[in-house]
């Protein structure tokens, strides 16, 4: 088992190296508009150096003057030491900015993840146990509608109804206008109310896949021989479903849930952007659209690491949870 885990980790590191190299190359090949526009601004100041001189100086200070491969090696050596450089957009160390914004994303991701689990798994099981009933149709259709809803459309609908229609929430942002004047409790509720719509968007647009996954797996288990045996034994249906079937359904569920745990850190790029929630997603979106290479590089690497970690956890859990799986 340990041997397998170590092998997987080594493989993940190799993949990560390739991925970061691909990303680095891509970013370097893009027109580095930020540096150029900065050089233009700086050179227009009275008594300033010429545009070319500024450009050369900026390129040197951002490490853009050396070739892609030496640049990548330098980036990598800094990455290993935990140095990600300074963000161009936010004019502060990337890591500091990251620490500042990750909390909101984690809270948002955590709450929506728990909500998803609490809603999707029972509904998925309900749909599976009453296959082809009206309930099943409604739940399956609901799950598919959730998957098919474009997040931006759904977010706008929510805004129209709850923000501008009923006036319960604000359209954008994490804190209200009078945030600074509120008591600590009031500040908490202010933030909480600003997170309601984003979390609703996240949960509803992503709940469908977990619901369908639960349903499919539950159906598979319900068709298994041991369920037939349990029924033949004369066990009550409740016991069959919750004792025998659900426990077996848990195996794939735990695997996929464990695998998606690292994703809680990745933030919701689109949803945060739609609601201007200053989490890691929106912060990165701003950085990426403005050609902030250090921040974009950090964010992309971060996401890649999370994906790899998720796959790794899923694979290990798969073996750990199900005693039938033996890894050689």
């Amino acid at each position: 088992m340990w041997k397998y885990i170590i092998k997987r980790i080594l493989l993940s590191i190799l993949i990560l190296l390739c991925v970061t190299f691909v990303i680095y190359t891509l970013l370097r090949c893009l027109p580095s508009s930020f540096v150029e526009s900065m050089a233009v601004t700086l050179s227009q100041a009275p008594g300033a150096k010429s545009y070319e001189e500024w450009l050369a100086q900026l390129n040197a200070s951002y490490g853009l003057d050396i070739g892609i491969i030496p640049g990548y090696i330098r980036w990598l050596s800094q990455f290993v030491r935990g140095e990600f450089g300074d963000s161009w957009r936010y004019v502060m160390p990337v890591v500091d900015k990251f620490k500042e914004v990750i909390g909101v994303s984690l809270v948002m991701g955590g709450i929506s993840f728990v909500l998803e689990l609490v809603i999707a798994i029972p509904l998925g099981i309900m749909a599976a146990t009453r296959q082809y009933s009206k309930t099943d149709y409604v739940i399956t259709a609901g799950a598919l509608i959730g998957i098919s809803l474009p997040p931006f459309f759904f977010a706008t609908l929510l805004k129209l109804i709850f923000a501008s229609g009923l006036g319960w929430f604000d359209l954008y942002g994490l804190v209200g206008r009078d945030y600074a004047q509120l008591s600590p409790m009031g500040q908490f509720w202010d933030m909480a109310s600003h997170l309601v719509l984003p979390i609703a968007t996240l949960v509803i647009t992503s709940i469908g896949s977990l619901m369908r996954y639960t349903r499919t797996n539950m159906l598979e288990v319900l068709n298994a021989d041991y369920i037939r045996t349990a029924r033949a034994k004369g066990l009550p249906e409740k016991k069959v479903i919750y004792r025998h079937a659900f426990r077996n359904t848990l195996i794939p569920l735990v695997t996929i849930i464990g695998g998606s745990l690292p994703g809680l850190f990745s933030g919701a790029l689109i949803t945060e952007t739609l609601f201007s929630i200053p989490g890691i997603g929106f912060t990165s979106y701003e950085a990426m659209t403005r050609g902030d290479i250090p921040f974009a590089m950090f964010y992309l690497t971060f996401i890649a690491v999370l994906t790899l970690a998720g796959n790794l956890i899923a694979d290990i859990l798969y073996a750990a949870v199900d005693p039938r799986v033996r890894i050689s």
Partner: protein
Amino acid sequence: MENKKETYSLNDDRRVRVLSPGAMVAKRFFRNRLAVVGLIMLLTMFVFSFIGGLLSPYDQDEQFYATTQQQQEYVGVVRNNDFRYTVADGMEFGSAAQAQFLLAQGKGESTFSYKDVTYEWVEEGADLYSIYANGTLLAFAAKDIVNEEEAALPFSVKYEALKAYVNGETSFTAEGASYELDEEGNIIENGAVIGYVSRFVVRSQENGVVISRDFREALEDAIETEVSDFVYTGEDGETYTYEITYNASAQNWSVLQTKDTYVYDRYASPSSRHWLGLDTNGMDMLTRLMYGGRVSLVIGFIVVLIAAFLGIILGGIAGYFGRWVDNLIMRIVDIFYCIPSMPLIIILGSAMDNAQMDSQLRMLYLMLILGFLSWPSIARMVRGQILLLREQEFMTAAEASGIRASRRIFKHLIPNVIPQLIVICTMSLGSTIITESTLSFLGLGVKFPFASWGNIMTDVNDAFVMTHYWYIWIPAGICLLITVLGFNFVGDGLRDAFDPRMKR
């Protein structure tokens, strides 16, 4: 009655209706209500996008204009409440003396002195005072103003005119000539108007606008009768409506001219000509929705085609040849899986923004990028299927019969992968359309002048548009939802239909 039903022996094939596998799939598919609904939704959207665009009388970037009434600040009017001083020729009456006069007038003292000179004043009528020093007329202070028509009027004419005006006389003489004064304050000499008396100061707010006497009169009438708007036909024959608003704190009137202007008919409401109104550029919304549907659907199909092509080739090679080829391709797949696609597309999109790329070229790149980033899941599925099928007896039989490898792959392996491939492609069509529209919504995908269901909705970033013009964004969102839902329903139905284990 004799039972005419034929009886077959138990193992007679005719006892059961034999269906081909395809017919079985179709039968299972059409029994699934959700799938049929999805198919109908998809067909509707296809007809809407591809045929609707042909039927629409408008073009996707045809702009519609409308004459709207725009209000412009035309003139400002102030009712004069301060004394204005007119000094006789060759005399002096400076501002310091004027201040002294005001003080004396306020106190009711009939004389005042300034710098050793003693002045005296006489009230000639309402708000008209003559100021004398040592018995000679020095100046007069009046709140009414004498405006000259063309030639400058001498002091005495102004003075006499005002005197006559405030005392309600209709004629006066000055310097030997006689003048007439009509009710409106016109000073008439020999039948010609040479000036007029009025308490209003009218200033034009636009450069180069000369305010005619006629207009002034109409305006003053309107102000005096306290009407809020009036119509006036100018010398050029154009008739405009003017709206008068009184600002109590500044004690002035501002006059807004309502002009007909020819502009893009922005956000026009739905009408019989434009069923879903007009968008922010004055383009027909319904037509743009149709063309946008075309773009969204075509992009979806091309992206999925690219992904499927790459996925089948690479997955097929990996699955069929195995060993190091498989290992290599699968590691590439792992790498691609790990590349965060959405952030990457956002970065590329904003880079294309910076390069100010042509919209059409941009669309092409978008398709290539999306296709190139989404083949790995298809490759993985194809490889898994082929690994599974390779071990089955029919493949051993095919190999034993000695047919070529290519024939084995394309005739025996690939057809067995097709069902899963169709399912995965249908489902990813839906998600590709969502991805594309999200990008277009953020302004990083399909760009103007091309319409896409995503970029049609971009206007809702303006909260006013969102709350006031539902027809700008709700139809586009619903089209998207219906299309994606249709693909997902159909994909789901196909999955169930292809999977023989799913018994109904």
